[in-house]
């Protein structure tokens, strides 16, 4: 994702990011063609079946890919601001940690870690303070939603200890 540093608009050089986006769009279209080709033979007498609309969408995506590539070569694709990837990595890491820990450690601990890592991404560095705070906050939320509003949120050791 290090596309933020690609050439600026004034230079009118081909925009690498736009070309990558064009390739991705074409690839999605390819995946649709490949997947939907398995479903043939069910169109029935009206020649309209489950494959019709996906084919149409895939054709439009190829058109959009070509259009994006043309704009990319002309260099008049969108301008963008420089991005800092450190904070993004912290937040993404937090979401990934919550996803992986949720079913073993339960909602409160997993979400507490997400909470602390997000706060870290926004500049709160004291993880030894933010993690316990996040766990307590998540536990309060868990109590409200799982016990009062009857939402099924996965319980872990902490929740089982107290309820």
């Amino acid at each position, binding site marked *: 994702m290090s596309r933020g540093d690609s050439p600026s608009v004034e230079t009118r050089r081909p925009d690498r990011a736009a070309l990558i986006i064009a390739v991705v769009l074409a690839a999605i279209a390819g995946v*649709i063609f490949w997947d939907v080709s398995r479903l043939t033979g069910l169109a029935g007498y009206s020649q309209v079946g*489950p494959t*019709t609309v996906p084919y149409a969408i895939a054709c439009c995506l190829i058109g959009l890919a070509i259009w994006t590539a043309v704009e990319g070569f002309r260099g008049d694709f969108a301008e963008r601001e420089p991005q800092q990837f450190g904070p993004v990595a912290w937040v993404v890491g937090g979401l990934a940690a919550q996803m992986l820990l949720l079913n073993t450690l339960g909602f409160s601990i997993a979400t507490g870690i997400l909470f602390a890592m997000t706060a870290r991404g926004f500049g709160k560095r004291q993880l030894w303070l933010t993690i316990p705070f996040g766990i307590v906050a998540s536990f309060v939320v868990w109590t409200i939603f799982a016990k009062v509003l009857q939402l099924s949120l996965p319980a872990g050791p902490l929740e089982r200890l107290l309820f």
Partner: protein
Amino acid sequence: MGTLDFLLQGLLVAAQPMNLLYALIGVTLGTAVGVLPGIGPALTVALLLPVTYQLDPGGSLIMFAGIYYGGMYGGSTTSILLNTPGESSSIVTALEGNKMARAGRGGPALATAAIGSFVAGLIATMGLAFIAPYIVKLALVFGPREYFALMVLAFVTVSSAFGDSTLRGLTSLFVGLTLACIGIDQLTGQARLSFGVPDLLDGIEVTTLAVAMFAIGETLYIAAQGDKGPDKVEAVRGSVWMSASDWARSWKAWLRGTFIGFPIGAMPAGGAEIGTFLSYATEKRLSKHPEEFGNGAIEGVAGPEAANNASAAGTLVPLLTLGLPTSATAAIMLAGFQQYGLQPGPLLFATNPQLVWGLIASLLIANFMLLVLNLPLVGLWVKLLTIPKPWLYAGILLFATLGTIGANPSVFELGMLLAFGLLGYIMRVFGYPIAPVVVGLILGPLAEQQLRRALSISQGDVTVLFTSPIAAVLLAIAALAFIVPLILRARGRGEVLAQLAASED
């Protein structure tokens, strides 16, 4: 029975103590979340959807209506006291409102926004109640091809008519339409684009996508901007009450804003922004104090804020009568209906009038509650603005993931949330609009169903789509809405359209 009888019955439903409580909880939560910077009405509704999971459909939709209106009110408070151009439907409010707040007139600015929203909400909700039955009658003559044409029109207006690039709007729309194909085909029961993954057979949840794109995408985007220091919150100095001259200058602007905003919201014409910009331009032209515009003119807050709320109520017209969401917020509300197996549209008015009219009536009640809640309690909401960014965004992600976990506590669902969050972030970086993805995902399957029905009836003859006069007119308007902006942009007149961009709502 006439509209008034239905509305009175609806009021009886909405005035039941439990429903009043749901409405109160809805408006309070909606205001509290809507006030938070960076959270617009669409995200407010998506974040708070899980709160309503355990209620019965009636109570849930009533709470939902409160959340929707509350989110709108909260958003205007944010834009007046905190200059946050990120919040699209109140950009114009921020223009004049923030200037007023800096000049120490934050109180009257908040008051005219709240009262203007109230007046507009009241008139527009009555408009909704009186227009809806006629559109329902009209909709009964609609066949599959007319519905398909209507949806094509909605696709074009949401994606490409406004915003700074036709290409990027359409790309967003087709990303949404591709995601909509995932899962079991409604008509033949075949799995499409699910690659043998059982979790994908049910398709992609609209709420997962919306929360990921709006909450996680926005959080990542803000994080990537680095630390730019805290935003300056303007304190509310002086009285929140408006002076006689404030009233005199505001009331016409409220009414004009309402009559500009409502029709624009009611047509399948995209977000609430267009109405706010038109209202701002109108007030600027008609004002006796044009020199004040840009320095905090009260008309410039009153008119657009009324237009904003009126078009929000207006978007409920196509949503309730035709089942057609024309904004991201409406798309998420449609998902709220669908979780109870309810499909808004003409049939719902016939089969479940209590629910529909209870909902419309509770909008009126929510509007009254919000006026009471907002004017005296504004100091409380202002406190929410001062939450430091790390806690704010950590909290937003806590609740964003809570909703997804509550609906489906699986690693796969959270993985999708993360993946779509990254997609939303990348789209933001490159200036792709988000709303068309959400609208494409929810409207795609409906449009496909209507198209296939129409073509099955005609035995595959495509010309049938253009031979009905209503469908032909709708498709012609859609073509115009596609071609005219392309020409305008090619001639370098695109700035006007870029300003009208509907980035969130």
